[in-house]
Protein backbone atom coordinates (compact mmCIF):
# COMPACT_ATOMS: atom_id res chain seq x y z
CA UNK A 1 0.00 0.00 0.00
CA UNK A 2 1.32 3.40 -0.88
CA UNK A 3 2.36 5.62 2.05
CA UNK A 4 -0.25 8.24 1.13
CA UNK A 5 -3.02 5.65 1.18
CA UNK A 6 -1.78 4.38 4.57
CA UNK A 7 -1.81 7.96 5.84
CA UNK A 8 -5.36 8.45 4.52
CA UNK A 9 -6.63 5.30 6.23
CA UNK A 10 -4.62 5.58 9.45
CA UNK A 11 -4.86 9.32 10.03
CA UNK A 12 -7.40 10.71 7.56
CA UNK A 13 -10.37 8.54 8.50
CA UNK A 14 -9.93 9.01 12.28
CA UNK A 15 -9.43 12.76 11.73
CA UNK A 16 -12.66 13.09 9.77
CA UNK A 17 -14.55 10.88 12.24
CA UNK A 18 -13.32 12.72 15.33
CA UNK A 19 -12.83 16.34 14.26
CA UNK A 20 -14.83 17.01 11.11
CA UNK A 21 -18.05 15.65 12.60
CA UNK A 22 -18.06 18.12 15.50
CA UNK A 23 -19.99 20.90 13.64
CA UNK A 24 -22.41 18.30 12.28
CA UNK A 25 -23.33 17.02 15.73
CA UNK A 26 -23.56 20.57 17.07
CA UNK A 27 -26.07 21.32 14.36
CA UNK A 28 -28.03 18.11 14.95
CA UNK A 29 -28.50 18.66 18.72
CA UNK A 30 -29.45 14.99 19.21
CA UNK A 31 -29.24 13.01 22.43
CA UNK A 32 -28.87 9.25 22.83
CA UNK A 33 -29.63 7.74 26.28
CA UNK A 34 -29.54 11.27 27.70
CA UNK A 35 -26.05 11.93 26.34
CA UNK A 36 -25.17 14.22 23.44
CA UNK A 37 -25.02 12.06 20.27
CA UNK A 38 -21.51 13.41 19.62
CA UNK A 39 -20.19 11.64 22.71
CA UNK A 40 -21.84 8.36 21.77
CA UNK A 41 -20.31 8.77 18.28
CA UNK A 42 -16.87 9.29 19.84
CA UNK A 43 -17.31 6.06 21.78
CA UNK A 44 -17.98 4.36 18.42
CA UNK A 45 -14.82 5.97 17.02
CA UNK A 46 -12.68 4.03 19.55
CA UNK A 47 -12.87 0.66 17.72
CA UNK A 48 -12.95 2.47 14.35
CA UNK A 49 -9.57 4.15 15.07
CA UNK A 50 -8.04 0.88 16.19
CA UNK A 51 -9.36 -0.82 13.05
CA UNK A 52 -7.87 1.86 10.78
CA UNK A 53 -4.45 1.48 12.43
CA UNK A 54 -4.71 -2.33 12.30
CA UNK A 55 -5.34 -2.12 8.54
CA UNK A 56 -2.23 0.07 8.11
CA UNK A 57 -0.21 -2.34 10.24
CA UNK A 58 -1.42 -5.37 8.29
CA UNK A 59 -0.41 -3.78 4.97
CA UNK A 60 2.98 -2.76 6.36
CA UNK A 61 3.57 -6.28 7.66
CA UNK A 62 2.67 -7.73 4.27
CA UNK A 63 5.15 -5.47 2.56
Amino acid at each position, binding site marked *: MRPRLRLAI*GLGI*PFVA*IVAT*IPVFSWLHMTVF*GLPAQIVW*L*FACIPLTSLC*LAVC*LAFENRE
Partner: protein
Amino acid sequence: MTFMFAGLIVLSLVLAVVSRRGHAVGRAEDFFVAGGQFGVVLFFFLAVGETYSVGTVLGFPGGMVAHGTGFVSWFLGYILLSFPVGYFLYPLIWRAGRLHGAVTLPDMFRGHFRSRGLEVLLTVASILFLVPLGVMQCIGLNTVLHDLGWPVPPLLLAGVGGGLAFTYIAISGIRAPAYVAVLKDVLVMAAILMTGLACLAAPQAAALPPSAPMPAAPAPVSDVFAISTILLQALGFCVVPQTCATVFTARSPRTIRRAQAAMPLYMVMFPFLTVIAGFALHHDLHLASPNDAFLAVSRALLPGWAAGVVMAGAALSALVVLTGICLALGPLVTRNLVPGLNSRAQASWAKLVMAAYLLLSIAGAARSTALMVAINNLFYFGVTQSFPGVIAIVTATRIRPGFVAAGLIAGDAVGVGLHEAGFGLGGMNPGLIGLAVNAVIVFAGRKEGLLF
Protein backbone atom coordinates in the same frame (compact mmCIF):
# COMPACT_ATOMS: atom_id res chain seq x y z
CA MET B 1 -10.63 -1.88 52.04
CA THR B 2 -7.45 -0.74 53.78
CA PHE B 3 -5.87 -4.22 53.74
CA MET B 4 -6.64 -4.69 50.03
CA PHE B 5 -5.25 -1.22 49.25
CA ALA B 6 -2.08 -1.76 51.28
CA GLY B 7 -1.61 -5.29 49.88
CA LEU B 8 -1.77 -4.06 46.29
CA ILE B 9 0.69 -1.23 46.98
CA VAL B 10 3.10 -3.79 48.49
CA LEU B 11 2.59 -5.97 45.40
CA SER B 12 3.56 -2.99 43.22
CA LEU B 13 6.83 -2.67 45.17
CA VAL B 14 7.49 -6.39 44.66
CA LEU B 15 6.95 -5.92 40.92
CA ALA B 16 9.41 -3.01 40.93
CA VAL B 17 12.02 -5.29 42.54
CA VAL B 18 11.26 -8.08 40.04
CA SER B 19 11.71 -5.62 37.15
CA ARG B 20 15.35 -5.17 38.18
CA ARG B 21 16.27 -8.84 37.88
CA GLY B 22 18.69 -9.65 35.09
CA HIS B 23 19.26 -5.99 34.17
CA ALA B 24 21.99 -3.60 35.21
CA VAL B 25 20.57 -0.14 35.77
CA GLY B 26 23.77 1.72 36.52
CA ARG B 27 24.15 3.20 33.03
CA ALA B 28 22.03 6.28 32.30
CA GLU B 29 20.55 4.76 29.12
CA ASP B 30 19.41 1.66 31.06
CA PHE B 31 18.06 3.72 33.92
CA PHE B 32 16.07 6.22 31.84
CA VAL B 33 15.06 4.36 28.65
CA ALA B 34 15.82 0.69 29.50
CA GLY B 35 18.53 0.66 26.83
CA GLY B 36 15.75 0.76 24.19
CA GLN B 37 14.93 -2.90 24.80
CA PHE B 38 11.19 -2.92 25.53
CA GLY B 39 9.05 -5.19 23.34
CA VAL B 40 5.40 -4.64 22.42
CA VAL B 41 3.90 -5.69 25.77
CA LEU B 42 6.05 -3.55 28.08
CA PHE B 43 5.98 -0.62 25.64
CA PHE B 44 2.19 -0.88 25.44
CA PHE B 45 1.71 -0.91 29.20
CA LEU B 46 4.23 1.86 29.84
CA ALA B 47 2.65 4.03 27.14
CA VAL B 48 -0.97 3.53 28.23
CA GLY B 49 0.18 3.66 31.85
CA GLU B 50 1.43 7.17 31.24
CA THR B 51 -1.52 8.13 29.04
CA TYR B 52 -4.26 7.46 31.56
CA SER B 53 -3.11 9.31 34.62
CA VAL B 54 -5.13 10.01 37.72
CA GLY B 55 -6.22 13.10 35.77
CA THR B 56 -8.20 10.72 33.55
CA VAL B 57 -9.42 8.26 36.15
CA LEU B 58 -10.59 10.86 38.68
CA GLY B 59 -10.53 14.02 36.54
CA PHE B 60 -12.84 12.82 33.75
CA PRO B 61 -15.85 11.97 35.97
CA GLY B 62 -14.94 14.97 38.15
CA GLY B 63 -15.05 17.25 35.14
CA MET B 64 -18.47 15.88 34.12
CA VAL B 65 -19.83 16.42 37.63
CA ALA B 66 -18.46 19.97 37.73
CA HIS B 67 -19.11 21.12 34.16
CA GLY B 68 -21.48 18.64 32.52
CA THR B 69 -20.65 17.05 29.16
CA GLY B 70 -19.31 20.18 27.46
CA PHE B 71 -15.63 19.22 27.73
CA VAL B 72 -16.10 15.54 26.86
CA SER B 73 -15.90 15.94 23.07
CA TRP B 74 -12.48 17.56 23.10
CA PHE B 75 -11.18 15.47 26.01
CA LEU B 76 -12.03 12.16 24.31
CA GLY B 77 -11.24 13.56 20.88
CA TYR B 78 -7.66 14.57 21.58
CA ILE B 79 -6.72 11.32 23.31
CA LEU B 80 -8.24 9.28 20.49
CA LEU B 81 -6.61 11.34 17.72
CA SER B 82 -3.22 11.20 19.43
CA PHE B 83 -2.97 7.45 18.69
CA PRO B 84 -3.01 7.78 14.86
CA VAL B 85 -0.68 10.81 15.10
CA GLY B 86 1.66 8.75 17.29
CA TYR B 87 1.41 5.74 14.95
CA PHE B 88 3.03 7.78 12.18
CA LEU B 89 5.17 10.20 14.23
CA TYR B 90 6.67 7.99 16.97
CA PRO B 91 8.67 5.74 14.61
CA LEU B 92 10.21 8.90 13.11
CA ILE B 93 11.03 10.24 16.59
CA TRP B 94 12.49 6.84 17.52
CA ARG B 95 14.77 6.88 14.45
CA ALA B 96 15.88 10.47 15.12
CA GLY B 97 16.50 9.53 18.76
CA ARG B 98 18.73 6.61 17.75
CA LEU B 99 20.56 8.81 15.25
CA HIS B 100 21.42 11.38 17.92
CA GLY B 101 21.83 8.94 20.84
CA ALA B 102 18.96 10.72 22.58
CA VAL B 103 17.46 9.99 25.98
CA THR B 104 15.50 13.26 26.06
CA LEU B 105 13.83 15.58 23.55
CA PRO B 106 16.48 18.32 24.07
CA ASP B 107 19.16 15.69 23.24
CA MET B 108 17.52 15.43 19.81
CA PHE B 109 17.37 19.21 19.43
CA ARG B 110 21.07 19.53 20.37
CA GLY B 111 22.02 16.79 17.92
CA HIS B 112 20.04 18.19 14.99
CA PHE B 113 20.27 21.97 15.45
CA ARG B 114 23.76 21.93 17.07
CA SER B 115 22.85 24.68 19.51
CA ARG B 116 23.56 24.60 23.23
CA GLY B 117 21.35 27.65 23.80
CA LEU B 118 18.34 26.00 22.15
CA GLU B 119 18.94 22.83 24.17
CA VAL B 120 18.92 24.80 27.44
CA LEU B 121 15.85 26.84 26.42
CA LEU B 122 13.80 23.74 25.56
CA THR B 123 14.96 22.05 28.75
CA VAL B 124 13.90 24.97 30.95
CA ALA B 125 10.52 25.24 29.16
CA SER B 126 9.96 21.48 29.52
CA ILE B 127 10.76 21.53 33.24
CA LEU B 128 8.50 24.54 33.88
CA PHE B 129 5.51 22.93 32.18
CA LEU B 130 6.10 19.58 33.87
CA VAL B 131 5.49 21.15 37.29
CA PRO B 132 1.68 21.52 36.91
CA LEU B 133 1.47 17.90 35.73
CA GLY B 134 3.22 16.67 38.86
CA VAL B 135 0.95 18.86 40.99
CA MET B 136 -2.06 17.30 39.22
CA GLN B 137 -0.90 13.77 40.08
CA CYS B 138 -0.36 14.77 43.71
CA ILE B 139 -3.84 16.33 43.91
CA GLY B 140 -5.27 13.01 42.69
CA LEU B 141 -3.08 11.04 45.07
CA ASN B 142 -4.19 13.26 47.96
CA THR B 143 -7.84 12.63 47.03
CA VAL B 144 -7.30 8.85 47.13
CA LEU B 145 -5.30 8.83 50.36
CA HIS B 146 -7.74 11.22 52.04
CA ASP B 147 -10.58 8.84 51.14
CA LEU B 148 -8.88 6.00 53.00
CA GLY B 149 -9.88 7.85 56.17
CA TRP B 150 -6.61 7.22 57.99
CA PRO B 151 -6.07 9.53 60.99
CA VAL B 152 -2.83 10.87 59.55
CA PRO B 153 -2.10 14.49 58.49
CA PRO B 154 -2.69 14.91 54.71
CA LEU B 155 0.82 16.27 54.13
CA LEU B 156 2.33 13.14 55.68
CA LEU B 157 0.15 10.94 53.45
CA ALA B 158 1.27 12.93 50.40
CA GLY B 159 4.86 12.45 51.57
CA VAL B 160 4.27 8.68 51.70
CA GLY B 161 2.97 8.83 48.11
CA GLY B 162 6.02 10.79 46.97
CA GLY B 163 8.25 8.34 48.84
CA LEU B 164 6.64 5.42 46.99
CA ALA B 165 7.21 7.07 43.60
CA PHE B 166 10.85 7.69 44.50
CA THR B 167 11.27 4.09 45.72
CA TYR B 168 10.09 2.71 42.34
CA ILE B 169 12.63 4.90 40.56
CA ALA B 170 15.49 4.10 42.92
CA ILE B 171 14.87 0.36 42.51
CA SER B 172 15.20 0.09 38.75
CA GLY B 173 14.63 3.33 36.86
CA ILE B 174 12.16 3.18 33.94
CA ARG B 175 11.69 -0.60 34.27
CA ALA B 176 9.85 -0.18 37.58
CA PRO B 177 6.98 2.00 36.26
CA ALA B 178 6.72 -0.28 33.20
CA TYR B 179 6.17 -3.35 35.39
CA VAL B 180 4.00 -1.49 37.92
CA ALA B 181 1.98 -0.11 34.98
CA VAL B 182 0.88 -3.66 34.15
CA LEU B 183 -0.61 -4.01 37.65
CA LYS B 184 -1.98 -0.47 37.54
CA ASP B 185 -3.73 -0.99 34.21
CA VAL B 186 -5.28 -4.27 35.32
CA LEU B 187 -6.49 -2.62 38.53
CA VAL B 188 -7.76 0.54 36.82
CA MET B 189 -9.67 -1.42 34.21
CA ALA B 190 -11.12 -3.74 36.89
CA ALA B 191 -12.01 -0.75 39.08
CA ILE B 192 -13.78 1.12 36.29
CA LEU B 193 -15.63 -1.96 35.02
CA MET B 194 -16.73 -3.00 38.53
CA THR B 195 -17.92 0.48 39.47
CA GLY B 196 -19.57 1.13 36.11
CA LEU B 197 -21.42 -2.19 36.15
CA ALA B 198 -22.44 -1.58 39.78
CA CYS B 199 -23.94 1.78 38.71
CA LEU B 200 -25.94 0.07 35.98
CA ALA B 201 -27.09 -2.70 38.36
CA ALA B 202 -27.92 -0.42 41.30
CA PRO B 203 -31.55 0.20 42.31
CA GLN B 204 -32.88 3.13 40.29
CA ALA B 205 -30.13 2.01 37.97
CA ALA B 206 -30.93 4.50 35.27
CA ALA B 207 -27.84 6.54 35.97
CA LEU B 208 -28.48 8.38 32.74
CA PRO B 209 -32.24 8.39 32.32
CA PRO B 210 -33.44 9.96 29.08
CA SER B 211 -35.71 12.21 31.08
CA ALA B 212 -32.82 13.60 33.10
CA PRO B 213 -29.90 14.27 30.82
CA MET B 214 -26.68 15.57 32.26
CA PRO B 215 -26.49 19.30 32.68
CA ALA B 216 -24.91 21.07 29.76
CA ALA B 217 -21.76 23.05 30.43
CA PRO B 218 -22.53 26.38 32.11
CA ALA B 219 -20.83 28.11 29.17
CA PRO B 220 -21.24 25.63 26.30
CA VAL B 221 -17.99 24.71 24.61
CA SER B 222 -17.90 26.13 21.09
CA ASP B 223 -17.04 23.99 18.08
CA VAL B 224 -14.02 26.21 17.40
CA PHE B 225 -12.69 25.62 20.92
CA ALA B 226 -13.34 21.86 20.75
CA ILE B 227 -11.64 21.45 17.35
CA SER B 228 -8.67 23.70 18.17
CA THR B 229 -8.15 21.96 21.52
CA ILE B 230 -8.28 18.50 19.95
CA LEU B 231 -5.70 19.52 17.34
CA LEU B 232 -3.39 21.21 19.87
CA GLN B 233 -3.49 18.47 22.44
CA ALA B 234 -3.34 15.52 20.00
CA LEU B 235 -0.11 16.99 18.58
CA GLY B 236 1.16 18.04 22.00
CA PHE B 237 0.50 14.63 23.47
CA CYS B 238 3.05 13.12 21.07
CA VAL B 239 5.90 15.43 22.09
CA VAL B 240 5.55 15.69 25.87
CA PRO B 241 8.89 14.85 27.50
CA GLN B 242 7.76 11.62 29.17
CA THR B 243 6.09 10.38 25.96
CA CYS B 244 9.36 10.82 24.06
CA ALA B 245 11.21 9.01 26.84
CA THR B 246 8.71 6.15 26.47
CA VAL B 247 9.22 6.09 22.68
CA PHE B 248 12.99 5.73 23.21
CA THR B 249 12.41 2.60 25.34
CA ALA B 250 10.96 0.71 22.34
CA ARG B 251 13.01 -1.99 20.64
CA SER B 252 12.02 -0.96 17.09
CA PRO B 253 9.54 1.19 15.11
CA ARG B 254 7.51 -1.97 14.48
CA THR B 255 7.13 -2.44 18.25
CA ILE B 256 5.71 1.08 18.45
CA ARG B 257 3.26 0.63 15.56
CA ARG B 258 1.88 -2.64 16.90
CA ALA B 259 1.29 -1.13 20.34
CA GLN B 260 -0.23 2.06 18.90
CA ALA B 261 -2.77 0.08 16.85
CA ALA B 262 -4.08 -1.61 20.02
CA MET B 263 -4.03 1.46 22.28
CA PRO B 264 -7.36 3.06 21.30
CA LEU B 265 -9.15 -0.06 22.57
CA TYR B 266 -8.05 0.83 26.10
CA MET B 267 -10.40 3.83 25.84
CA VAL B 268 -13.31 1.46 26.38
CA MET B 269 -13.04 2.73 29.97
CA PHE B 270 -14.65 6.05 29.01
CA PRO B 271 -18.24 4.85 28.48
CA PHE B 272 -18.06 3.33 31.96
CA LEU B 273 -16.55 6.51 33.46
CA THR B 274 -19.46 8.40 31.86
CA VAL B 275 -21.96 6.08 33.53
CA ILE B 276 -20.15 6.59 36.87
CA ALA B 277 -20.28 10.39 36.47
CA GLY B 278 -23.98 10.15 35.62
CA PHE B 279 -24.61 8.16 38.77
CA ALA B 280 -22.72 10.70 40.89
CA LEU B 281 -24.75 13.52 39.37
CA HIS B 282 -28.08 11.93 40.16
CA HIS B 283 -27.33 10.73 43.68
CA ASP B 284 -26.49 12.73 46.77
CA LEU B 285 -23.04 11.40 47.63
CA HIS B 286 -21.77 14.40 49.67
CA LEU B 287 -18.71 14.88 47.46
CA ALA B 288 -15.77 16.65 49.08
CA SER B 289 -14.87 17.92 45.59
CA PRO B 290 -15.88 16.97 42.02
CA ASN B 291 -12.60 15.01 41.73
CA ASP B 292 -13.95 12.71 44.47
CA ALA B 293 -16.91 11.52 42.31
CA PHE B 294 -15.40 8.21 41.12
CA LEU B 295 -14.15 7.12 44.53
CA ALA B 296 -17.40 8.18 46.26
CA VAL B 297 -19.48 6.09 43.82
CA SER B 298 -17.22 3.05 44.28
CA ARG B 299 -17.44 3.37 48.08
CA ALA B 300 -21.22 3.66 47.91
CA LEU B 301 -21.78 0.68 45.60
CA LEU B 302 -18.92 -1.79 46.05
CA PRO B 303 -17.93 -4.04 48.95
CA GLY B 304 -14.92 -2.91 51.00
CA TRP B 305 -12.32 -5.10 49.26
CA ALA B 306 -13.46 -3.92 45.82
CA ALA B 307 -13.31 -0.27 46.92
CA GLY B 308 -9.72 -1.05 48.00
CA VAL B 309 -8.97 -2.27 44.46
CA VAL B 310 -10.44 0.97 43.05
CA MET B 311 -8.33 3.11 45.37
CA ALA B 312 -5.16 1.15 44.66
CA GLY B 313 -5.80 1.49 40.90
CA ALA B 314 -6.33 5.25 41.22
CA ALA B 315 -3.29 5.69 43.47
CA LEU B 316 -1.06 3.64 41.16
CA SER B 317 -2.26 5.61 38.13
CA ALA B 318 -0.95 8.75 39.87
CA LEU B 319 2.27 7.03 40.98
CA VAL B 320 3.12 5.52 37.58
CA VAL B 321 2.69 8.88 35.84
CA LEU B 322 4.59 10.65 38.60
CA THR B 323 7.52 8.24 38.20
CA GLY B 324 7.33 8.66 34.41
CA ILE B 325 7.53 12.45 34.78
CA CYS B 326 10.43 12.13 37.22
CA LEU B 327 12.30 9.84 34.84
CA ALA B 328 11.77 12.37 32.06
CA LEU B 329 12.81 15.25 34.31
CA GLY B 330 15.97 13.71 35.80
CA PRO B 331 17.91 13.47 32.53
CA LEU B 332 16.62 16.90 31.44
CA VAL B 333 18.65 18.31 34.32
CA THR B 334 21.62 15.95 34.40
CA ARG B 335 22.16 15.67 30.61
CA ASN B 336 20.82 18.94 29.24
CA LEU B 337 21.15 21.55 31.97
CA VAL B 338 24.33 20.27 33.62
CA PRO B 339 26.12 18.24 30.95
CA GLY B 340 29.48 16.59 31.41
CA LEU B 341 28.51 14.13 34.13
CA ASN B 342 29.52 10.55 33.46
CA SER B 343 26.82 7.92 32.94
CA ARG B 344 26.69 6.70 36.56
CA ALA B 345 26.81 10.22 37.99
CA GLN B 346 23.83 11.14 35.77
CA ALA B 347 21.70 8.42 37.36
CA SER B 348 22.78 9.44 40.88
CA TRP B 349 22.23 13.17 40.40
CA ALA B 350 18.96 12.55 38.63
CA LYS B 351 17.64 10.83 41.77
CA LEU B 352 18.32 14.01 43.75
CA VAL B 353 16.52 16.12 41.14
CA MET B 354 13.56 13.75 41.14
CA ALA B 355 13.30 13.85 44.92
CA ALA B 356 13.25 17.66 44.78
CA TYR B 357 10.56 17.59 42.06
CA LEU B 358 8.40 15.22 44.11
CA LEU B 359 8.66 17.53 47.14
CA LEU B 360 7.75 20.53 44.95
CA SER B 361 4.73 18.69 43.52
CA ILE B 362 3.54 17.67 47.00
CA ALA B 363 3.87 21.27 48.20
CA GLY B 364 2.06 22.55 45.09
CA ALA B 365 -0.80 20.08 45.57
CA ALA B 366 -1.19 21.14 49.21
CA ARG B 367 -1.80 24.72 48.08
CA SER B 368 -3.85 24.07 44.94
CA THR B 369 -7.39 22.81 44.64
CA ALA B 370 -7.69 23.53 40.92
CA LEU B 371 -9.75 21.21 38.80
CA MET B 372 -7.53 18.64 37.11
CA VAL B 373 -9.00 19.31 33.66
CA ALA B 374 -7.95 22.98 33.92
CA ILE B 375 -4.38 22.02 34.90
CA ASN B 376 -4.29 19.59 31.98
CA ASN B 377 -5.00 22.50 29.59
CA LEU B 378 -2.22 24.70 30.98
CA PHE B 379 0.25 21.84 30.59
CA TYR B 380 -0.53 21.46 26.87
CA PHE B 381 -0.21 25.22 26.13
CA GLY B 382 3.46 24.87 26.96
CA VAL B 383 4.67 21.41 26.00
CA THR B 384 3.18 21.46 22.50
CA GLN B 385 5.48 24.29 21.44
CA SER B 386 8.33 21.86 20.73
CA PHE B 387 6.24 20.30 17.93
CA PRO B 388 7.51 22.42 14.98
CA GLY B 389 11.10 21.71 16.03
CA VAL B 390 10.36 17.98 16.24
CA ILE B 391 8.86 18.04 12.73
CA ALA B 392 11.99 19.77 11.48
CA ILE B 393 14.16 17.07 13.08
CA VAL B 394 12.22 14.04 11.82
CA THR B 395 12.03 15.46 8.29
CA ALA B 396 15.73 16.41 8.37
CA THR B 397 14.84 20.02 7.62
CA ARG B 398 17.74 22.33 8.40
CA ILE B 399 16.66 25.42 10.31
CA ARG B 400 18.67 28.16 11.98
CA PRO B 401 18.54 27.42 15.74
CA GLY B 402 17.77 31.06 16.56
CA PHE B 403 14.46 30.75 14.71
CA VAL B 404 13.55 27.57 16.58
CA ALA B 405 14.31 29.29 19.89
CA ALA B 406 12.35 32.41 18.87
CA GLY B 407 9.40 30.24 17.81
CA LEU B 408 9.44 28.38 21.12
CA ILE B 409 9.47 31.60 23.16
CA ALA B 410 6.82 33.26 20.97
CA GLY B 411 4.56 30.18 21.08
CA ASP B 412 4.71 29.93 24.86
CA ALA B 413 4.27 33.68 25.32
CA VAL B 414 1.31 33.93 22.93
CA GLY B 415 -0.43 30.81 24.30
CA VAL B 416 -0.08 31.58 27.99
CA GLY B 417 -0.44 35.34 27.44
CA LEU B 418 -3.73 35.07 25.54
CA HIS B 419 -5.05 32.60 28.12
CA GLU B 420 -4.15 34.81 31.08
CA ALA B 421 -5.47 37.94 29.36
CA GLY B 422 -8.74 36.13 28.65
CA PHE B 423 -8.95 37.10 24.98
CA GLY B 424 -11.77 35.27 23.19
CA LEU B 425 -10.51 35.04 19.59
CA GLY B 426 -13.67 33.30 18.47
CA GLY B 427 -13.26 30.51 20.98
CA MET B 428 -9.93 29.35 19.50
CA ASN B 429 -7.63 27.59 21.98
CA PRO B 430 -4.85 30.13 22.69
CA GLY B 431 -2.27 27.33 22.70
CA LEU B 432 -3.04 26.56 19.04
CA ILE B 433 -2.63 30.22 18.11
CA GLY B 434 0.74 30.14 19.90
CA LEU B 435 1.66 26.98 17.99
CA ALA B 436 0.75 28.60 14.65
CA VAL B 437 2.90 31.66 15.43
CA ASN B 438 5.70 29.33 16.53
CA ALA B 439 5.50 27.23 13.33
CA VAL B 440 5.60 30.31 11.07
CA ILE B 441 8.73 31.60 12.84
CA VAL B 442 10.47 28.20 12.86
CA PHE B 443 9.93 27.47 9.17
CA ALA B 444 10.86 31.04 8.21
CA GLY B 445 14.35 30.06 9.39
CA ARG B 446 14.76 27.01 7.17
CA LYS B 447 17.93 26.57 5.19
CA GLU B 448 17.15 23.45 3.20
CA GLY B 449 15.52 20.09 3.77
CA LEU B 450 13.05 17.48 2.73
CA LEU B 451 9.99 19.62 3.33
CA PHE B 452 10.80 22.34 0.84
